């Protein structure tokens, strides 16, 4: 993912604290909503994402079928009004399995982004704020993590931790720490040269105080934009590892695994893998669209 680093100019407002930014956000909310009305694709994206979050929170509200029990007399029923996504080999409703699978996949995604965001931000903050030898040492390690393609790194980590959805989440998170660290460090380096930081030092605020009160709130915005973008990437990574069979064991519904299960019958019953796969792709496209709108907002 390419991430453009915003120029220090964006954080020009002296000592703009996170709280100040949020009240600004609230005040412009009606304006934002009316802007939203002019972007139908963005609205649809939000609806898709909210519905899928609903799937994850209360799957039984969206489907009356069980994700585990099937009717073996009705195996491989094509998509119909009764079974929106059709049924699989065991006659299980694939829509129900997709709905329940949202919880597995989205929880893993959230965990992955939190791991990457949490650790990456701290590492980048320390590197950028400490400078000197610490900075060089940390950034060389970050280089190494960037040199190994993230899917490969995640595969290695998951093979060491053992196969499970939680470990997939950890592995995906760990493999994205480096990009968060790099963005955070660049932001911190830009913020520490600002006048308000010098002023704070001049007023006698300690290093820790400056870091917590001024550097962190003013460096976070780019990293948050990256986190939004990372959600889509993480869903894909989690599903890819699930597809390769490193996640939840088969009876569990998980989006990548659903596609993998249907793949064996793709020649005769294509919908069994295509329907869950298309649902996954639509969710990723929607998250992508939303995170791009965040980035545009942020750049303004």
């Amino acid at each position, binding site marked *: 993912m390419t991430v453009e680093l915003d120029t220090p100019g964006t954080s020009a407002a002296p000592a703009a604290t996170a709280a100040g930014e949020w009240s600004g956000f609230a005040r412009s909310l009606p304006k934002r909503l009316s802007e939203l009305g002019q972007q139908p694709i963005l609205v649809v994206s939000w609806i898709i994402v909210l519905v899928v979050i609903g799937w994850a929170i209360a799957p039984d509200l969206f489907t009356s079928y069980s994700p585990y029990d099937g009717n073996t007399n009705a195996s491989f029923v094509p998509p119909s009004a009764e079974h929106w996504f059709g049924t699989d080999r065991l006659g299980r409703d694939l829509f129900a399995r997709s709905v329940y699978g949202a919880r597995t996949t989205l929880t893993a995604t959230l965990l992955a982004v939190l791991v990457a965001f949490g650790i990456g931000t701290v590492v980048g903050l320390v590197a950028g704020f400490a400078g000197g030898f610490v900075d060089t040492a940390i950034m060389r390690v970050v280089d190494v993590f960037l040199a190994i*393609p993230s899917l490969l790194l995640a595969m290695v980590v998951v093979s060491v931790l053992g196969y499970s959805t939680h470990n997939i989440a950890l592995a995906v998170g760990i493999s994205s720490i480096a990009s968060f660290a790099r963005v955070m460090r660049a932001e911190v380096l830009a913020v520490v040269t600002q006048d308000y930081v010098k002023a704070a030092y001049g007023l006698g605020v300690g290093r820790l105080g400056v870091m917590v009160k001024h550097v962190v709130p003013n460096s976070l915005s780019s990293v948050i934009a990256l986190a939004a973008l990372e959600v889509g990437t993480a869903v894909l990574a989690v599903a890819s590892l699930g597809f390769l069979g490193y996640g939840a064991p088969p009876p569990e519904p998980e989006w990548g695994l659903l596609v993998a299960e249907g793949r064996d019958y793709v020649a005769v019953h294509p919908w069994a893998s295509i329907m869950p*796969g298309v649902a996954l*792709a639509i969710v990723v496209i929607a998250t992508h669209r939303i995170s791009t709108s965040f980035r545009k907002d942020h750049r303004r």
Partner: protein
Amino acid sequence: MLRYVALKIGRALFVVWAAFTLTFVLLFVLPANPVDLLFDPAEINAIPPEVRERVAANYGFNKPVILQYLDRLGHALTGDFGNSVQSGRPVTAAILDMLPSTLVLASGALALALLIAFVIAFVATSTRREWVRNLVEALPSGAVSVPVFLSGILILQIFSFRLGWFPAFGDEGAKSVVLPLVTLAIPVSGPIAQLLVRSFATEFHSGYVTTSWAKGATRSGIIIGDVFRNASLPALTIASITFGNLIAGSVITETVFARKGIGRLTQTAIDTLDVPLVQGIVVFVAAIFALINLIVDLNYPLLDPRLRATLAVSTPRAA
């Protein structure tokens, strides 16, 4: 200039060494009992203790960690990553065997991805219709959003099972590479296209283009003659992302199409916990990554005269 070159080479070597060390820690030190990883998980309980000990001694697991590390590092420097646990063959030979197949797939996919990306950038820049531009500009983010395994299955379904134009699986003949190649090209083209669309737009509004307009050049003449040359260079800066996409994509693509190659080798190595092979592959991939970055870093000043000028006058720190 010399310092710049030395610094870049030093960094590349460091990355390869660190990738070796990282995988050593992950695969040989962290697991509670690395010997267990050397056996098939299904048969692990059936293995008598004396066999375990012999294997441990054979792999040097009874020695202190630091000695194991130095021993492995020494061998790795000569290109020896030990033997694959599953096949018993040298890791290096196993990787080199699979390399040509993946190289054909990856280079073909890269060529196609570049073509797609340039067509998208060209259409987005040259069209005067707003909706065409919006549509074309939406394609790259779609390309990175669709999971590779889904596009693979869709392509397989349409062009192999429905139309019967291409074989579905295997690696016999030139025809079998077409579908995997297209599948892999899609996600690789996305980021390149996004970058090109942006840099085409920037260059299209620069001063020398205005001059060309004034001299009576046509829209497509300007794009091909002026913009194309100047806007292509930034594509090199995302070579590392492209490489990562190619590797990750080939793991999935080779699995979906049951093709042999580095991607499939990686997947089997991970599935069977073939520790030496996994380490060999990761170090190999990191080495290629470092090499690609090195080539880009060293050639960029040659390709961009502005950068050459900065390098000549300033200290390498600025580069």
